[in-house]
């Protein structure tokens, strides 16, 4: 790109462009973080490149694998498809924010106990997704595996292995650790 006459490259790089970037706040794992970011930045890139939180992984970057799953205001979402600026003031929980001090989250413990991983790349996404999924089931959200005769208002959806597999289908595991992932989640499901 040709430099503007009279301005060096270095200076030009620092000219803030109010059009394509914004300053806003995200609450990440309970901490207020104010950021100035290019509008193109996704939540995933904000976490990994700007906040040093590399738990959420980039698998496909297109919503197809679930490795980037985080909780946004308590609900699971693919952070690779969320523009950070559009999440202004949201509360974001990553796998780093699940433990309470030294006490791992029950799902983290279950994944360890069941050895529910091989390479581990998909694991943070699996665990965040499972946290969100258990909450959805508790709130009575149905799934494609829920019997069609079940009516609304019958309380929490019971979670057998079929339900867990269906509800977790947005999280792929290239190592094929699925059987143990389902076991681990079943251990924690009510």
């Amino acid at each position, binding site marked *: 790109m040709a430099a503007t006459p009279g301005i060096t490259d270095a200076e030009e790089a620092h000219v803030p*462009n109010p*059009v*394509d970037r*914004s300053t806003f706040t995200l609450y990440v794992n309970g901490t207020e973080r104010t950021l100035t970011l*290019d*509008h*193109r930045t*996704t939540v995933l890139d904000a976490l990994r490149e700007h906040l040093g939180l590399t738990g959420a992984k980039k698998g496909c*970057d*297109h*919503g197809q694998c*679930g490795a980037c*799953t985080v909780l946004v205001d308590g*609900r*699971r*979402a*693919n952070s690779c*498809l*969320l*523009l950070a*600026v*559009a999440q*202004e003031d949201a509360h974001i929980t990553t796998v780093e924010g699940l433990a309470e001090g030294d006490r791992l989250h029950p799902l983290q413990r279950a994944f360890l106990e069941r050895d529910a991983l091989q390479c581990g790349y998909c694991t943070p996404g699996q665990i965040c*997704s499972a946290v*969100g*999924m258990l909450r*959805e089931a508790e*709130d*009575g*959200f*149905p*799934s*494609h595996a*829920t019997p*069609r005769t079940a*009516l*609304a*208002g019958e309380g929490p959806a019971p979670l057998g292995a079929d339900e867990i*597999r*269906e*509800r*977790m*289908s*947005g*999280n792929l595991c290239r190592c094929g650790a699925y059987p143990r992932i389902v076991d681990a989640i079943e251990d924690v499901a009510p």
Partner: protein
Amino acid sequence: MKPFAYLRPATVSEAVRAGAGHPGSRFLGGGTNLVDLMKLGVETPGLLIDVSRLPLDGMTRTDDGGLRIGATVRNSDLAAHPEVRNHWPALSQALLAGASGQLRNTATTGGNLLQRTRCPYFQDVSKPCNKRIPGSGCPAREGTHRDLAVLGHSQDCVATNPSDMAVALAALDATVQLHGPEGVRTVQVTDFHRLPADNPDQDTVIRPGELITEVVLPPPSAGAVSLYRKARDRASYAFALASVAAVLSVRDGRVDRISLAFGGLAHRPWRARVAEDLLRGASTTGDAFARAVDAELAAARPLRDNGFKVDLARRLAIGALVELTTRAAST
């Protein structure tokens, strides 16, 4: 991705004004399709108008017993809504058969209706595609088209509409409300998506700057049962090869109310009017269903590699009608 400005209007009229004032802009719902296409370079808006926080997230019964669904209601909340599950189960089932739990939490009603085709050439900016660049050609017709259209396609485009939700809405006679620079209008979902003809760059009849504000379901018809069935390459988290939404009521052993729509077969949800006309008043036998569905699918013009879809759709539809007949008898 091209740099862009970002705006978050507080009201519908502000959003519409902003859209009208910036021809290169796009409305941002959940972003699960738009952000993806921006990463691929298919969409290059200079301005995103974020409509996801507009006060359009309500679901309320209408005076006549229908349901108003705000454009920013998330797919997961719509699928879980007690009124939807109990009175319009085909809609809930269609949503739950689509995408993943994460995506449904983010995707909005408005964005789902306007999601673009998954044709691989459309998503690849190094390839020609009449939908992306009018006049550049359609490589899918001779190339990879196993997942593409068998009905209503044109020389210029053989793409399919990927939405499961839209198929259920078409069968349920839902309407879409649009707010645009020239005012407010209501369009039937069955008239909202178009066939490709010679201008496949237009997926729908939406006009520049128009914002979807709500979708309205008419009241459920008394005694009718409904369902959604989808066939795909894997058990979950895959787009439809073929799908069907059906609404049926039976009186004195004969079909009374019938509404049938196919997904995955065409550039829009395919309302099976030919089959419906044959079925109204017909006996509720497998033979009668097969005759009607065959009459509808006689219009199919499969491409080299997607003829299997016709048989798939046929079996889905007949199976759905048989199941609904059993259920209608027991209600």
